[in-house]
Structure formats: structure tokens, C-alpha cells
């Protein structure tokens, strides 16, 4: 078992290096002159000499590969450079915003499961009934609405018209968490209800369920003890994968609700061309995603007897 985890960890190294290289290269080659852009953005003026002096200070005049290696070595030591804008060390800066984003992602995932699991199972059991059709329609609508649009409408209705929730995120309080969580989990639930429904339906037609039914075991028991356990595997994978879209989606939602997370920071940094922060953002997100997927794989390994006993580690 430890061998398996170790092997998986080892296989991450080239991927992480690749991630760092691609992020660095993309931003290096598409980005403009950080120094000039930054001073324009705030309406300030720098003379050409001062601009080139600043570029020199930031090490922007060196060849690409040197800058990359230098940056990578720094990253390994926990140094992701200094933000052009705030002058703070990027590593700590991002780290301070990370918990908010993780909190938002976690609550969104939990709410998604709480919504989609019961509804998905229910509509599978009563498939083609009225309830199933309603759920189907609603989840279809949820699937076709862009989340930023949902966010705008939700904040307008819930916060402003009904005055149920604060408009401005106050720190990380529960109340401030509700709107962004709701926005993110509504769209995801729409997707998952349908997937869970399909999963449960296909599971219900399997021989062991038919056998269990024949043995007179209650339908509820079958669903809770057999079907749910076996579908949990797939659900874990789905959740791990959707953690990625959550991290991306949270950037949009954080911006709309002023949730002080890493996604909001990312958009601000992009507008200000704060390259070290943008880079760190991409790297952190990819790292978390890879890590979550690793966790999912490991839990998969534990949950699925075939994998564990057969020793087949193929994905």
C-alpha cells in the first residue's frame, strides 16, 4: 500500500515540473511589459530610464530559460518571488488567501453532495415519474445557465430584495459564505443529479440487486447498503474531477461576491499584470488539483477491492 502511494507521488514529479514550465512559458510569452502596464494602470508616470531600471531590478532583462530556472529554484525553496504590485512575498500572500478559497470549494462540494445525492437517487428510484421529470427539467436549466449570471440574479434577489444575506462578504462568516456557495453548488448539482441518477439506475439493474430483491431484502436497504456503497467510488472520482472546475469557477464567483480568496486575487493580478502572482496562482491551483486527485485515487484504491487485491494500479 505505501509502495502504491509512494509510486504515485513519484509519478507526480515530472507532472509538477511540466506544469511549472508550461505556466511560466505561457505567461512569459503572452504577457506584456509588466512595469509599463502597471504604472499606466494607476495613472502614474515613469520616465523611460526609470522603467528600464525597474525592469533590471525585477530581473526581467535576462533570457527566458535563466528566468525560468531561477524562478523554479525559488519555488522549491518556497519563494515564489515578490508581487510587483503589493511588494509582498507571493508565496505567503497566496497562502493567506488560500484557506478562503478552499473553504468555499469545500462547502460547495458538500452542499452539492447534499443536494444531488438524495435528489439523484430519488429520481432514479422513481425514474420516469413526475418527480423525475421535474428534477430533470430543473437540472437541465441549471446546467445551461452561466454561473456568473446566476450569481448576479441570486445576489439581487436574496441579498438586496429579500435582505436575507449580506451583500458584502464580511470576512469568512457563515452568512457571507452562503451566496457564493449556493451559486457554485447549484450549477454543479444540476450536473451531478443526472449523473447520479444514471449511475443508480444502471446499478439497480445489476444481477446482485435483482438477486437481493429476490431474497426479499427491502428496496431501501439495497439502496443504502449496496448501491450507495458501490456508486460512491464513481462519485468520489467525479467530485475530485469537479474540484478542478470548482477552483476555476470560484474565481468568477469570488469576484462577484467579493470573497477574499485566491480567485479574486488572480483576476486582480491579471488586470494589473502582476505576473509573479498570476504564476503562483496557476501553480497553486494545479498543485491542489493534482493533490486532490491523488487523494481520490488513494481512496479509490481502498474502496475498490479489485484494485487492492488484484494489485492492478492502472488508471
Amino acid at each position, binding site marked *: 500500500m505505501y509502495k502504491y502511494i509512494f509510486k504515485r507521488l513519484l509519478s507526480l514529479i*515530472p*507532472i509538477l515540473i*511540466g*506544469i511549472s514550465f*508550461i*505556466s511560466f512559458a*505561457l*505567461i512569459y510569452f*503572452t*504577457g*506584456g511589459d509588466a512595469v509599463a502596464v502597471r504604472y499606466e494602470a494607476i495613472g502614474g508616470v515613469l520616465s523611460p530610464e526609470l522603467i528600464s531600471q525597474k525592469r533590471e531590478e525585477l530581473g526581467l532583462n535576462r533570457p527566458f530559460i535563466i528566468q525560468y530556472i531561477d524562478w523554479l529554484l525559488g519555488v522549491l525553496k518556497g519563494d515564489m518571488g515578490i508581487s510587483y504590485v503589493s511588494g509582498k512575498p507571493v508565496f505567503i500572500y497566496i497562502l493567506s488567501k488560500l484557506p478562503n478559497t478552499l473553504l468555499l470549494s469545500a462547502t460547495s462540494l458538500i452542499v452539492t453532495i447534499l443536494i444531488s445525492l438524495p435528489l439523484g437517487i430519488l429520481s432514479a428510484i422513481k425514474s420516469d415519474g413526475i418527480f423525475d421529470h421535474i428534477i430533470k427539467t430543473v437540472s*437541465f*436549466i441549471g*446546467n*445551461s*445557465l*452561466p*454561473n*456568473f*449570471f446566476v450569481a*448576479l440574479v441570486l445576489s*439581487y434577489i436574496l441579498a*438586496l430584495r429579500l435582505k436575507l444575506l449580506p451583500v458584502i462578504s464580511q470576512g469568512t462568516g457563515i452568512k457571507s459564505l452562503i451566496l457564493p456557495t449556493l451559486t457554485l453548488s447549484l450549477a454543479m448539482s444540476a450536473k451531478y443529479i443526472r449523473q447520479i441518477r444514471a449511475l443508480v439506475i444502471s446499478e439497480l439493474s445489476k444481477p446482485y440487486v435483482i438477486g437481493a430483491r429476490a431474497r426479499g431484502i427491502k428496496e431501501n436497504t439495497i439502496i443504502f447498503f449496496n448501491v450507495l456503497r458501490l456508486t460512491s467510488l464513481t462519485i468520489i472520482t467525479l467530485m475530485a474531477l469537479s*474540484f*478542478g*472546475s*470548482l*477552483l*476555476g*469557477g470560484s*474565481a*468568477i464567483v469570488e*469576484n462577484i461576491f467579493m470573497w477574499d480568496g485566491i480567485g479574486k486575487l*488572480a*483576476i486582480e493580478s*491579471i*488586470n494589473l*499584470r502582476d505576473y509573479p502572482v*498570476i*504564476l503562483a*496562482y*496557476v501553480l497553486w*491551483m*494545479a498543485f*491542489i*488539483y*493534482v493533490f486532490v486527485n491523488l487523494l481520490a485515487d488513494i481512496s479509490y484504491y481502498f474502496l475498490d477491492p479489485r484494485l487492492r487485491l488484484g494489485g492492478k494500479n492502472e488508471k
Partner: protein
Amino acid sequence: MRNKKILIPSILVALLLIFAFFSPYLTPYNVSEQNLMISRQAPSFAHIMGTDIYGRDMFSRVIAASRISIFSALAVVLLMAITGVVIGIFCGYLSGIADTVLMRVSDIFLAFPGLVLAIATAGLFKNGILGAVIALASVGWPRYARLSRGLVLSTKTSTYIYAAKLSGSNTVQIVFTQILPNIIGQIIVTACLDIGTSLMELAALSFLGLGATPPTPEWGSMINESRSLLQLSPWITLSPGIAVFITVSVFNIFGESLRDYYQAK
């Protein structure tokens, strides 16, 4: 029965595409014609979606935007599907070092979560919407590479490929005459299901100001531009939002019925 189920969505999609293509000629008013005298008018018979702050007809704007919004979503899907499939077939068919290297590269791209890479790079291009398209496609291609590689591997060993090899066909011929036709169905299904998502992601990037920028008529940027009017002149914000919703719905229905069709087959 099965054919009927796919017929209606296909017609809808065809209509939508034709409509989007000819949209500049279909607008009741000139899209860029401003008239400050009728700024922010509520929907009426003359302007069924009202007018924006410049007094432009919202209905015409929404129609005009369909072209960029829909075709850039198609461009994303085409770009990532073609790149992915070419690489995937190449890897699956040839195996060896090239396969290993390219698959590791695709692993790396797959390790970037969702929109993250697109958000980080889209805004850095000089041309907004093109940047967003490239950014999204560069994140999306590995899925197609994976899919088509898998499909190639599973068809590669079949007898008819073997037969083709024996009859002296070269690699390119085999790929085009034997392998591609066998896997294209599933690829198309995946691609169609991706159109709606791409459209929403593009709109989201534009909404963040990282894609199309005004005055380019594009739904996401139109919503962004008129956000603060949601309270006072909601029609300006809601009209493009509804357009996104309807379009994505149509593409999703089409993609799903296409999937059902292929699965049944």
C-alpha cells in the same frame, strides 16, 4: 423513433447556426446606430428587448452577438477536438516514445484545473476573444487526445485493420480509411456536448473582461458591461443572459440526443 428524437434538436441547431451566420443581416435595426434620445428605453413594440444606454436596439444587439458568441464557441471545440484527435490517433497508432512523451504532455495540461489556465492567459493576448478561444482550446485538447488514443488502441488490434495492413495500405491510409471512421462518432458526440460548456466558459471569460471587450457584440461582455443596470434597466442585462441560456440549452439537448442515438446504435 430514435431518429425522430434526434431530428428536432438537429433542426434547432441547424437553424441556430444559420441564424447566427446570417445574423448581421437579420437585425431589425442597425446594431451600432446610436440615438441618445431613446437611451435605456424599456421593452416596447418597437424595441422588444428595449434599448441600451446608447439607445441601440437590444434585440438587434443580442442577435448580432450570436455570431461571435456561437462561432467562437464552435472554434474552441473544433480547435481542441482536431488538435486532440490528431495527436491522439498519432499516439495510439504509433505507440513508442512519441506516444509516451505526448501523453505525458497531455497529463500536464490535464493537471490544470478547469478555467484556471484560461483565466491566467486569456487576458494577456492582444485580441481579447481570440485569446480566450486559444486559452480554452489549449486546456481542452488533452481530453480529446486521451479519448481518441483509447479508441484507436481498442480498434487497432481488430481484424479489419490487420487485413488492411496485409493488403498493403500505408499508415496514413489506414488511419483515414479504417480508424477515423470508426471512432469519429464518439468524438463528435463529445464535441457536441462540449459546445454548450465552451460557450458558457467564453461568456464567463468575457464577463471577467478577459475575452471580448465592448463594442464587440458578445453576450458575456454585454452582461458585464450592463451589470450595474440590473436594477434600473434589467432588460439590458437579462436579454443577453437569456440568449446564452437558450443557446446553451439547444446545444445541450442536441448533444444529449446525439449521445443517446450513438449509444443505442
